[in-house]
């Protein structure tokens, strides 16, 4: 489903050139749950951003459902993103000026889903994530775990094919962390492909496969079991 070929990302600032990613060749199949691990600064977030079409690779190819999206214009990438990819971040990244309901609704707005259906789907998601009671609250009024559940709800609301999660549990205590991991596994079981960056070996275990990055390279891929064998 996702496939990279010799993917490279070089950041050039005034003084130094940082090679954040160097010849990355990975493949993620439909329905897989892939964890990415590695020391800080090794390029995990960079990779995830490129996989999520939030950033451009400097070189190499990136195929999404066999389509070479690395040559897409910003405009095509934007339209490709919506509906196909959902994001969850360590720092939740909710829009502070919007309520819980409005945050979750946002992807549907950009997909031009009619209002009655939007309402229905957002309410479903709120129920599912057990935050229905908080739907009119603003992000600052929620605990970290609640915020992350809103973020997950927002990521899945448009029923994307892939969810990309960058340290989704990073800011949570273990109880809330497990809760979020539970949500992600459940989504995976329902068929959503998941790529997740994490520092925790325990949470990495939720995946079928772990990719280890080091200094911009893929070092090992541990296959735990065949996906949905």
């Amino acid at each position, binding site marked *: 489903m996702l496939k990279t070929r010799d993917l490279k990302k070089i950041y050039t600032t005034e003084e130094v050139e940082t090679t954040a990613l160097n010849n990355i060749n990975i493949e993620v199949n439909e329905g897989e749950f892939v964890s990415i691990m590695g020391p800080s600064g090794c390029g995990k977030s960079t990779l995830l*951003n490129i996989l999520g079409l939030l950033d451009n690779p400097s070189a190499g190819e990136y195929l999404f459902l066999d389509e070479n999206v690395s040559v897409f214009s910003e405009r095509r990438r*934007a339209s490709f993103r*919506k509906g196909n990819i959902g994001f969850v971040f360590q720092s939740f*990244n909710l829009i502070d*000026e*919007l309520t819980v309901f409005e945050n979750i609704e946002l992807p549907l707005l950009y997909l031009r889903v009619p209002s009655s259906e939007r309402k229905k789907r957002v309410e479903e998601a709120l129920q599912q994530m057990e935050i229905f009671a908080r739907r009119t609250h603003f992000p600052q009024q929620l605990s970290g775990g609640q915020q992350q559940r809103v973020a997950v709800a927002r990521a899945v609301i448009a029923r994307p094919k892939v969810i990309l999660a960058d340290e989704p549990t990073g800011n949570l205590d273990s109880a809330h962390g497990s809760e979020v991991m539970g949500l992600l596994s459940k989504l995976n079981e329902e068929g959503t492909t998941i790529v997740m960056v994490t520092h925790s070996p325990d949470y990495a275990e939720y995946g079928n496969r772990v990719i280890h990055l080091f200094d911009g390279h893929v070092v090992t891929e541990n296959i735990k079991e065949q996906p949905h064998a």
Partner: protein
Amino acid sequence: MFASFFKIQLRNLIKRKGHAIINLLGLAVGLASCLAIMVWVQDELSYDRFHDNGESLYRMWVRWDYSGEPMRSSLTPAVLAAALKQDVPEVVRATRFNQEGKQFIKHDGRSFYDEELALADPDFLDMFSFPLTRGDKETALADRYSLIVTESMAARYFGRTDPVGQVLNINRQDFTVTAVMKDIPANSHMRFDCLAHFDSRPQYLIDITENWNVSAYYTYVQLSESATIEDVSAKSTAVVEQNRSKHEGATVEFDVQPIARIHLHHEITDYLEGHGDILYVYLFSALAVLLLLVAGINYMNLTTARATERAREIGLRKMVGASRLNLIRQLLIETLTTTIVAVLLAVVLVEAFLPVLSDWSGKQLQFSPFTDFLTLSIITAIVVLTTLLAGSYPAFILSAYIPATVLKGRIYSNPSGVLFRRLMVIGQFVASIVLIVGALTIQNQLNYIRDKELGFDKSNLLYMDMRGKFRQLYPEIKQQLTATTGIADVTAGRPPLTGYNSAFYVRVNGRLVPDDYRLGRSPVDADFIETMAMEIIDGRSFSPDGGDAPLAGFVLNETAITTLGPDVSVGSHLAFYGHSNTLDTLHFEGYIIGIVKDFHYRPLTNSISPVIMYHGPEELYDICIRVVPGQEQQAIAAVKVLWETHASEYPFEYQFVDDTIDEFYRTEARLKEMFGVFTALAVFISCLGLVGLASHAADRRVKEIGIRRVLGASVGNIVKLMSTEFVVLVMLASLVAVPAAWYVTGKWLEQFAYRVEIGWGLFALAILLAVLMAAATVGVQAVRAASANPIDSLRYE
């Protein structure tokens, strides 16, 4: 989707009240100024456009060229209208016209001096759209002493009784009211309260003026649809040439001017009152655009400066699927709603200040933004323009962020954005400095004109029309008044700059002088020159008690001597002839006895005009009284007592010469006031923008400032750190502004024959003002930021 935009905007607004207020206030004040100017410009442009026949109505004018110095005048011979109608087929209708000014009117045993009388021929009513509410257009001016009164005059004199058939005595002549006319719209260059037949003038005036060689009245014509201006002008010139006596080397050409041009275009000298000037229309339109720009720049700068805060929201929206187009739309809609709110505020402001604005401009300004289609469309255009102008740059910049960079954390203002904002601030201050220089120049020029050496002493000089017995008894009255405390001197004659007569039919050294209307003819009392404090530079003044009789003595100003020719000097023979084509009736003659230092005879936008003065006891209509400063009231009271004794049937009306002179510069004085106000507003908006930018800079650097303070920086250090940038920007702006201001003010001053030098001091003052203003606004913000307890700002990082 839109609901979501508004929600975000509203919540942002509430969250950042200060910022929102600055943004809105700046825009609203800018838009209000722009609208106010628009109202004024619209009024100026609307002059004389309400006539149904407007397209085919013209006023005749004449190009004279006697001595290689061509002049254009709208004064024409009274006999022109009838001749044109008869001999030029394109002229369908024609009328003579004149504004006679205020008249003495008697009614019901009381006398009044309030109503302006105009004279015209019957065609006037068919040509112009001044509708009658009573009476019949066909017969209203049929008789020599018919009178049409306006509705408001009718109400003043006759109340509820039917005015038609009533009799009013104007200047001792009974007139019968035949019709009532709607009041003359304020945007008409012709102004009057009542209208009479042109032939109602006294017989002696008709005798003098019904003649091709006297050009003293206006002629309006209505041309046929097929007429071309070239044809009409050639044919009219031919008609005049057939009739008029010729002068060697002189050319006289007639031409037509569309009536819609009369108010604003002054290529032709005009003496009807209350004129405008197309230059000011352009000037103020430019000012309106400038104000809009300055306000738009504020919005742009404040919005992009806040980009760092908005970036996260924008990035997140992109992440969940917003396209760039979505975001541009959102940001533009934000600007649009802000602009709409600002425009509504602006409309309220303009409504509130309309009376003040009317006062400044001396007009009755109308502002109906929601009912007048033109106004509404202009407002809409302004809203769209402002939105695009102020909103597109922020929308373009903000929507371009690559989400990954934004989501990573705080992004820092990109250097090109900072450069852009600096350029914009420079632009605003260039505008402000140019405006300040402009305002100071206007002020200086007007003071200069007012205080200029006029060649005579205009101070404490009262003058009035003598009437009835008061005029006949002038010699005795003069003696009595001279002996009164509070009165220094008494003389008679029209004071310079308060009105004048042209000299026609003059021979100097036996040679005929072309009847150049610039040549003034001024009959005065024997001690006029001394009382006016004019300076004799050659020869002598008039001898007292008519000592120059039986031949007259003439005193000319220097310009008159040069105009009349190199052979003319003290001792030259000069003769005035009677009013006939053949110039055979000698009126009186004499010799030039003296020359006075040049004095201004006509308003200062013209150069000094030539004038011939002579002792003319029979022709004295004005008394001039030099009062002792501080004793004006006693003096006026004394004159009034004599007036009541001898001329009680006439109202007591007097004026001071310097007030009359100030009246000439009313347009300029009003311009000065309006310009000053809008300049102040432009500077205010620019400073508002600086406050916004500076407070934003302070917010952004709150941590840096905190650390610096902890490390020992004083409040002064921090203020300096934060203000330097802005002050440098204003200095840079000065570099651009000085040449621009120098050029623009130079252009404006060109129209004055006598103008101030624009010195460096004025520029320095303008720059100093701008720098001070900038330093003050930025400084306040800086002090606020610097004096906060550093621990507070660090704790929250």
